[in-house]
Structure formats: structure tokens, C-alpha cells
């Protein structure tokens, strides 16, 4: 089943869309002197000149040039901007490794309850019992899902969890009187992994990938020595395949005294099926904004709690959430514990991204254990179905699977044949997909796959939307056979067309010049 040509989007730029005719105007350019939105409470205390209260030389000279604009104009401005975004609520967003699953609105409702949203983080724990109990419950749920006995919710995102993991690794080795210099990362790893290794003061050593897409065991054995502090791994990895040798990998790394770190970006594939702790991992980070439905917000907020084994527990960040059983049938009491002489310390202010914890907890509470397992199952079903559809017809010819086996929740295609035979790059296919109303997959990652497309549909998509996505790919490749120029010049229907990214880096303009 393919679409008819009449449904195909425009394939030339002759007639700009209304949005394209609308020039981008910033809120600063809408500013008109004297306009305003806010009304503030009247002053009810003596109106003393400021310089009587703070020495003049410590006071600001000229005003910050913030916009002068009315409330309706602010609302119109940002509504107009919002329509220049593609979002998950508009259509499929199969961005690999990003887990663009539906964001249930009930989570927003419970996060906005005044008892959550209005709670000061330095409130006395005695008067924040509900928040501490929620965090305590979320910690226990994540322990069960990860198969590890201790959790800290503190890290603010996956990358922050990774940094925590390597600082924990450092503390663990130093406590045993060992100094180790190297951290192993597979060549398929997320860019955050090697960047974190450097920030944590270690040296990156790359491990090769074998012909099945897993860690090359021979290469691992060669590189695993007494100077290795840790191996950072994603499983299923960024190729979407589960590394069946995980137990042996764990033995090799533990055999030389290293820790095993699990990048939880792909946890959505295995919830309820397999647990990182059972695979031998010592430290896991969980992206609450991926597997646990916190909205991505156009680049955050997220949260990256970490789960750890017993031997890592003494080093966890402080404060920890603790629970004391009530005596004589009284309710248990929750508190923040700042002790922990071996702790790596704090990773940020206060207790973490609590609003994200509320949403993640509401999600886990909604689905329950069985529901989480169903979610992973459906994610794998959707990915494999979409893969099967894409292997039919032109997809199989021009964008073959990089590693030919069943996938988990995502898969990686190589657009190398399309580039070779049709003269269109993966980038061009992605840009044309925008005209068809789909967000493209992750492209050019992982790096070891030539012209990579990394596709993760998540459990959110229906069979109908997967079929429509497969049809769009098929039709785009047909267009490429007919007239590759269409793809090379795409997109045609988006608010702006291809942008000059080189110019933005060569001569960066990163703020508006104002009077």
C-alpha cells in the first residue's frame, strides 16, 4: 500500500507557505516603549531612596533592555512561536535513543498540586512528609525495576547521572587504595559517555563492536586491565540489539576490579523483562524523561536517578531519604540524612528535580509492574513491525539494517546504498520526511554505521501511524529514484527551509543587539 501522488507534499519552493512568508520577529522587536504586562503589589513600606539602603556604587546604572510589551502581545508572540515547532502531540517522533513516548496529562495535573508545586525545598522535613514519602516510594520502585538495592534521585539528567556514576567509581577505588586511570566505552556509546569520562578525570579507551553488534569480547579482554576503573555500557545498545554476552562482559570487567556502568537511555526496551542489576551492573542511571514519561520540554527538564549495588552504596550523594518506622502503630516518618562520611557529596542544590519525580511516580503508579512490562513489549513489537515494513520494497534496498537481526525497541539502518545509488544522503531523506509530517529518526548516530538512521517508534504509536511512516519512507525513496533533487532541496513546507548551520558557528550571533 503506497500513497497516491496527490497526497504527496509539495516538491518545490515556488509558493511559500503562509508561515514561510512570516518573517521571524523576536519579542525584543515587538517591544514598544511604555508598554507593560505586570502589575505589582503597591508599596506598603516607606519609599526610601534605594541608595540609602544600598551604596550607590553597588547599584545598577542603566536598566536591562527587557521587552516592553502587553500581556496579549506576549501570549500571541509565544503562540505564534509554538506553531513553528513540531511536537510529539502532533505526530510520530521516532527519534532513536530519545524514547519519545506519550506524556500523560494526569502527570501534569498531579505535579501542579500546590502541595507539590508550592513546596519550598528547604521546608523542614517534618512538614514535607508527603514529598519525602513520594521520593522514598519512587526510589523503591526504581530499585525493583533496575534490580539494584539502593537509589539516589539527585542527578538532574542522564549526563548528570553518568558523572555521578564515574565519581562513585572514583570514590570506590580510592577507598580501596587504588588509583585507576581508564574508562572503557564501546564505539557505539552515546556521546555523553566519553564526554563524562573526561569530566570525571579519566581517559577514554574505546572498545570495538563485533559482527553481531555487541561488544567485541577479544578487544575487551585485551583492553581490560588493572588500570580500568569502569566499563560504561548501554544494553540494549545504541544499535538496538541486546548484548547476549553481558554476563561474560561483567565477569571480564569485574575480574580486573572495574565497575560496570549502565547507561539507562534504553531501559524502555526491557522493563519487567530483564534488570541491569541481574546483568551484573554496579551503577545504573535512569532517564525519567525517557522511560518514565516526563515531557522532554524541547530539551529538558529531565532527571537521571542512579541505582547502585551494595559495594557502591556508601558513596552515594547526600542527602539521602530515610524512613523510620513509627512506634506504637504511628505512621512512618521520613527525613533527609546528611551523614555519610564516604559520600561523594552533592551534585546540585536541594533534593533534585522533584517535579519530575512526581510525574515519574504517577506514571509507574498508573501502569504498575505489568503495565511497564507491557510498555516494553509493545515498544519492541512496534520497532520490529516498523523494521519489517521498512525492509519491504525500496527500504530494504536503499536503507538496509546495519546489523541483521531482531531488534529490541529501536533499530539502526544504513542509508549508504541510497547515497551510493541515488545520490541522496541520510540527511536528505530526513529533511524530506519533515514535508510528510513526521519527525525524522536520529541521524548519523551511532558513528560506526555509515549514513545511520536510528529509529525508535516507542509503544505510543499505533499500527496505523507506523504504516503511515513506512509508506512515507517508501514514497520518499520512490521520489529519490525519480528526481533526487526533491530530496536534496527538501524541506519545502516547514516554517523555514534548510538553514545555514556553518554560518551560525563561523560568525556566531548568539544574542540580539539592543539599544
Amino acid at each position, binding site marked *: 500500500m503506497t500513497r497516491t501522488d496527490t497526497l504527496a507534499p509539495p516538491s518545490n519552493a515556488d509558493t511559500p507557505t503562509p508561515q514561510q512568508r512570516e518573517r521571524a520577529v523576536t519579542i525584543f522587536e515587538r517591544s514598544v516603549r511604555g508598554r*507593560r504586562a505586570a502589575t*505589582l503589589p503597591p508599596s506598603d513600606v516607606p519609599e526610601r531612596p534605594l541608595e540609602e539602603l544600598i551604596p550607590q556604587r553597588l547599584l545598577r546604572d542603566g536598566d536591562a533592555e527587557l521587552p516592553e510589551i502587553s500581556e496579549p502581545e506576549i501570549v500571541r508572540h509565544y503562540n505564534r512561536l509554538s506553531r513553528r515547532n513540531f511536537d510529539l502531540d502532533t505526530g510520530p517522533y521516532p527519534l532513536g535513543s530519545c524514547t519519545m513516548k506519550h506524556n500523560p496529562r494526569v502527570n501534569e495535573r*498531579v505535579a501542579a498540586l500546590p502541595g507539590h508545586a508550592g513546596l519550598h525545598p528547604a521546608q523542614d522535613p517534618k512538614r514535607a512528609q508527603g514529598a519525602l514519602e513520594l521520593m522514598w516510594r519512587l526510589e523503591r520502585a526504581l530499585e525493583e525495576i533496575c534490580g539494584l538495592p539502593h537509589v539516589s534521585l539527585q542527578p538532574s539528567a542522564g549526563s548528570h547521572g553518568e558523572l555521578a556514576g564515574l565519581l562513585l567509581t572514583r570514590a570506590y577505588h580510592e577507598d580501596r587504595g587504588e588509583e585507576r586511570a581508564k574508562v572503557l566505552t564501546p564505539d557505539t556509546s552515546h556521546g555523553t559517555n566519553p564526554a563524562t569520562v573526561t569530566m570525571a578525570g579519566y581517559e577514554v579507551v574505546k572498545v570495538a563492536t563485533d559482527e553481531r553488534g555487541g561488544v567485541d569480547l577479544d578487544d575487551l579482554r585485551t583492553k581490560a586491565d588493572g588500570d580500568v576503573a569502569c566499563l560504561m555500557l548501554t544494553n540494549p545498545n545504541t544499535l538496538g540489539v541486546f548484548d547476549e554476552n553481558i554476563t561474560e562482559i561483567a565477569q571480564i570487567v569485574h575480574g580486573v576490579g572495574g565497575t560496570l556502568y549502565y547507561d539507562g537511555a534504553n531501559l524502555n526496551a526491557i522493563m519487567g523483562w530483564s534488570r541491569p542489576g541481574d546483568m551484573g551492573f554496579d551503577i545504573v542511571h535512569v532517564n525519567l524523561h525517557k522511560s518514565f514519561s516526563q515531557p522532554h520540554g524541547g530539551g529538558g527538564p529531565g532527571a537521571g536517578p542512579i541505582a547502585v549495588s551494595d559495594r557502591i552504596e556508601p558513596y552515594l550523594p547526600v542527602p539521602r531519604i530515610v524512613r523510620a518506622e513509627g512506634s506504637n502503630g504511628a505512621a512512618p516518618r521520613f527525613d533527609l540524612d546528611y551523614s555519610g562520611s564516604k559520600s561523594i557529596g552533592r551534585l546540585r542544590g536541594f533534593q533534585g528535580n522533584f517535579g519530575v519525580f512526581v510525574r515519574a511516580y504517577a506514571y509507574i503508579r498508573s501502569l504498575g509492574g505489568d503495565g511497564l512490562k507491557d510498555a516494553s513489549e509493545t515498544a519492541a513489537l512496534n520497532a520490529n513491525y516498523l523494521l519489517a515494513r521498512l525492509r519491504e520494497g525500496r527500504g530494504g534496498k536503499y536503507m538496509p539494517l546495519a546489523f541483521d537481526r531482531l531488534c529490541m525497541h529501536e533499530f539502526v539502518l544504513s542509508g549508504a546504498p541510497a547515497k551510493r545509488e541515488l545520490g541522496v544522503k541520510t540527511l536528505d531523506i530526513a529533511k524530506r520526511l519533515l514535508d510528510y509530517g513526521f519527525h525524522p529518526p536520529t541521524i548519523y548516530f551511532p558513528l560506526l554505521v555509515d549514513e545511520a538512521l536510528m529509529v525508535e517508534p516507542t509503544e505510543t504509536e499505533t499500527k496505523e501511524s507506523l504504516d503511515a511512516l513506512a509508506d512515507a519512507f517508501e514514497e520518499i525513496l520512490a521520489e529519490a529514484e525519480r528526481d533526487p533533487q526533491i530530496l536534496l532541496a527538501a524541506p519545502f513546507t516547514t516554517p523555514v527551509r534548510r538553514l545555514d548551520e556553518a554560518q551560525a558557528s563561523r560568525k556566531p550571533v*548568539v544574542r540580539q543587539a539592543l539599544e
Partner: protein
Amino acid sequence: MLEAIGVASVEELFAELPDDVRLDRPLDLPPGAAESEVVEDLSALASKNADAESEVCFIGAGMYDHYVPAIVDAITQRSEFLTPYTPYQPEVSQGGLQVMFEFQTAISELTGLPVSNASLYEGPSSVASAAYLAIGATKRRRLVVSRALHPHSRQTLETYARGFGAEVVEVGIANGLTDVDQLAAALDDDTAAVFVQNPNFLGAVEDLEALADVAHARGTLAVASVDPIMLGVLRTPGECGIDIAVGEGQPLGGRLDYGGPSFGFFCATEEHLRRMPGRIAGETTDADGRRGFVLALQTREQHIRREKATHNICTSQALNALGGVIYLSWLGKRGLVELGELIVRRTAYAREALTAIEGVEPLHDAPVAREFALRLDAPVRETLDLVAEQGIAAGYGLGREYPEYEDGLLVAITERRSKADIDRLAETLQGVVAGEWLVGDGAKVSDSETTAPVAGEVGT
């Protein structure tokens, strides 16, 4: 679907999971719940918290109970802002990218520094990120911090510094302010950066220019953590010669949210642009010459540069930063100044009203802007508990993080704290310090637990 895939059951898709790592039982979690049950469950938890709507909140210490205008929620809850990923496809992300560009402009205006990124996680970790930049830029490995820098920032910096292989040295406080002589003495030729805060943790307004001068005399970078709301009235880091200004963005239209999510901001002088952490939006043009925005300078970032990246951050706090720029537009040029002036005046009033109480002294007499520190002639913990019984959160006890100020209390003022609220706090505090609220025949309360309000009943 299974037929198309060529398997007989969904279980077959998981056939490659080896038996020894397969979970052979259901997850031990409560069963799933209906939406109504989830709301009931979480509402019950929320009701056990004493929030800033149910009591009068004078707690600050880095996050403040400001009014959040309705348009912030209305706009940030729109699907088009709430549900996209990081703008990797700029043609369909112009809304989010332009928001970043506007945010960078607004924050740059506030701090008086020419370049800003599009947000980091939050305040204290932004301080640590500034250290990473400073070490890279100076090739030095010593970090000197003021004891008047937020304790969470100092602790976070200590944590990160072990990864950076850097030494952290602390300099003391003299009458509420960073001790400039100690600071000068603490610097050496291996010092990468000096870290101060304005207003500092004790509420005092620092002389940033003098501190920056001391740092620059040794070729050291000056980093200031600043309160964005007070930049409407206080001299900007840029004017004071600060090299890097960072801070906690929550006061700019962010909820308290028990500490997050909020956002951190990061501004610097032009020379540090290519070492900045995090996303940065830049202006450019499209194939037809239209104005547009993209992620600029991506060669700094982890997804391109991997182990050579200037930071490891990926997901940041874009939605909270959007809230910040909406808030700043709502306040506008005059509103920010008026808000700052109102807060400074009410803070002055509150400081006078509270220090007029017998048994309450100022902890320092340096100028303050929105928060001030007191010394109480009464145990702080017990005092806070007793004042809380009257539906008032009086402030932040300094004892845990500053043992030298065991009797210290930090009180914060916002536009939501009226003169009447302040008078009520003064009256209540006076009663407590004078012993009026002490139980029985005037004996000191030994176990504060017994007099603490029952959770969930606060303010009702």
C-alpha cells in the same frame, strides 16, 4: 503485526535475552491504577506537605516564593513547547530555537555579559560547570571559594573538583561579606578561578568589582553566582568585571517544586564563547534567505566532540528557561526594576522590624537586598517549630551548614510578603523568643517533635 515480523509471539522478540539475565517473575510493584486513583493517591501525599500557599513562607536560601504569573503556565503547558525533544531538526524547531535566542538575549541583558547559553540544570551545578571552563581556559587547577557562596554550590563544587583533579580552597567571611584580604592571600599562580555570590548566602550585597580586581591581579578568573531578580537593581556582573556569571533561575517565573526542575544560567565574556557548556542558539538564514535559528557552535558538544567536548550535558532545562523568558517579558523593563525596589524596601523594613525584637540581633550589618541573617537568643530549631505552629515558615536555620552561626536565621522577602505578613512574623517571633509560646510554666521545649504541627493540618 507479528506475521509481518515473522514471529509467532511477542515473547520471541525477547528470545535473545539469555536465561540468566531474564526476570522470571513479575515486577514487585503495586498493580496499575485508574487515573482517578492516581490523582487521589498523589493528592493524599501532597496534602502532607506544608506548602507556600498554606503558610506564609519566609524561607529563601536560593529559591524564593515569588508570584508565578498565569501566562507562564498557560504557555509552557502548550504541547508544542512541552513535548518536543532538543531541536536537532531546526526546520521544525524554530519556535524552541527562537525561545533560546530570546532567553540568551534576556539573560545577557540581566548580567551585562555578552554571551549566554540556553540553560544548564540549576544553580549550584552551574557553579561547578564554571569551574570546568576556568580550568580549561587557564590550565590551572586551584579553585578559591568564598564561604559566603551558597553551601550547596560549595559542596557541589567539591564533588565535581575530585573529577577535575582540582583543589578547592575556602576563604572566610568578615561582617557578612567575603573577606577581601583573606581572598587576596589565598590566590596563587595556579588559581584558576575565584567563586563569589551576590547577594551572598547571608543576604549581603558584595562589592563584586573589588573581588574581581583581586582575582584579576593574579590572572585568575572571577566567577559570580547571582540572583537574577536582584539584577534589576544591583550592579551587573559585567559592569563589575566578572568573567563568568551563573545562577539559579527559579526566581524567574519558576515554581518552588521542592527544589526542581528549575534552570541554571551561564554567561561569560566573549572570549569564553567556544568553551561554554550546554546548548547555544544562533541566528542564521535559510536556503531562501529567511531569518532562522539553529544550535550554534555544536562542535563544543558531546554528541559531536565526544571526549573532547567542553561539557557532558545533553538534556538541560529548556522548558524552565522558556518560563524564565516569558516571566521577564511579563515583568518587562520597568517591572523588573520596580520589583527589585519593592523587595529591597520591604527587606529593609523587615530587617528593622525583626532586629527591633529583644533577643534578635543582625548577624551582620552589611547592606542587604532581599534576604538577611539574624542571630536569635533562642534555639533556632525550636523557634522555627513554634513559629510554624502559627502558619509561618520564618526562615532558614544556618546551624547545619555554618556551625559558627548555630544561632543564625536567614529570612527572605518577596513581593508576596506584605508589610502585614512581616508584622505578623515580627509579632510571632517576638512572642516565641520572649518565651510566650513555650509550653507549660515557661520550661524550654526539649523535644520539638511534640509541638510540631501534624503534617497535613498546617494552615487549615
